[in-house]
């Protein structure tokens, strides 16, 4: 499938990127935002890797009888980016856990409402007893 020439790979990348972006800006749940962020991240990875592809090329591992290799540089960048990505995601998750403990919710709206309430009355917010969706 990668033998077809064209730009469709980039278009799919853009689609995925926008899907992740949409999740990040439209959804209120912080964990879901992180999932959206990782979808976004993955689209960037796909973009880099598609740029490094050479038609008819082989994986950049020296093999006998192969002269055309794909570009190893994007691979290196993305390889480290993936692992760094998981580390940063973990930091995000830790922040979410702390937010959950401090505010009792991981929904953006609740957090904002609690912040506003805290601004008006300094006693601090009461428990935001939002019953979970069944």
């Amino acid at each position: 499938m990668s033998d077809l020439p064209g730009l469709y790979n980039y278009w799919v990348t853009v689609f995925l990127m926008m899907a992740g972006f949409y999740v990040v800006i439209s959804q209120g749940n912080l964990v879901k935002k992180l999932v959206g962020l990782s979808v976004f991240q993955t689209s960037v990875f796909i973009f880099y890797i598609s740029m490094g592809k050479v038609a008819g090329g082989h994986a950049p591992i020296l093999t006998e009888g192969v002269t055309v290799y794909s570009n190893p540089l994007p691979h290196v960048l993305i390889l480290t980016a993936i692992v760094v990505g998981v580390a940063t995601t973990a930091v995000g998750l830790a922040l979410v856990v702390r937010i959950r403990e401090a505010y009792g919710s991981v929904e953006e709206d609740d957090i904002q409402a609690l912040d506003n309430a805290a601004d008006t009355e300094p006693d601090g917010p009461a428990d935001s007893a939002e019953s979970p969706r069944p």
Partner: protein
Amino acid sequence: MLLAFLMSIALAVIRVRDLFVVVMLSSVYSFMTATLFMDLDAVDVAFTEAAVGAGVTGVLMLSTLRLTGRWERRPSHGPLLPLIVVSITGAALIYGTLDAPLLGDPMAPVQQHVAPRYIEQGPVEVGMPNMVTAVLASYRGFDTFGETFVIFTAGIAVLLLLGIQEGPQTKPGRTAIGDQLVLRVVVKMVIPLILLYGLYVQFHGDFGAGGGFQAGVIFATAFVLYDLVFGEGDARLVAPPSWLHRLGALGVLIYGGVGLYSLFVGKPFLDYSALSHDPVHGQHFGVLLVELGVGITVFSIVLAIFYALSGRNKAT
């Protein structure tokens, strides 16, 4: 075909509100991505994506969900405004791609600049068949050092945020899943295989796909599996958190120490030719050490993050 799968999974991720399902779908998604990477010749990247995206990220997200709750509320505002923003951005980006080089074009600007040197000289200068490892550890050793450090910092940040839980917090084997005899036996059988495979990946990285990043993640996966099935207490006895923190620092130290050694000998920082009389031999040795450092760091940091997330009790 794969791209269609990817798109549909992305759509489903947007729609579904059960966050558990979202995480499951995203791990299927990352399997697909990894297959796509295989198809685009990026063997090492596929390796990393499979180990990280499907394994570790999923497990970390699940242990967060355990703490934060499973259901997402319906967003309070309508989807129209974000949709407009997204479509405008997407249209702009697609317009931008129209000038981009075609997929697989060997004359594209990306292929012209540095890559040919790596491809032609890499195997000669560094002396290992896997160019990705050569570029990763030798030519771009500084970058990789920085990235190892980022991982280390991220681990420290998570530990600062969540606190260090010393010792077992829960009784071993309290989950119902741990009572399943078949599962316990098979897991006991599989874990040595995973560890062995991790070692293979670590030291075979010069010749085939693999390297320190992947091996560290695979090692951590084995311990995570042990923890999942046998309960938190048991895994913590095998790999105590305090050791992990020291190991994480040790990995970075090994990497930095290699660089400093070459500095002492009178060569530039991280110039592995200093390690031996024969430059190629020295390169080989240096890459091996550096990958070892990276592997140790990644393993211990990933496992420490997992402990920190999973050991925390649910807030009331």
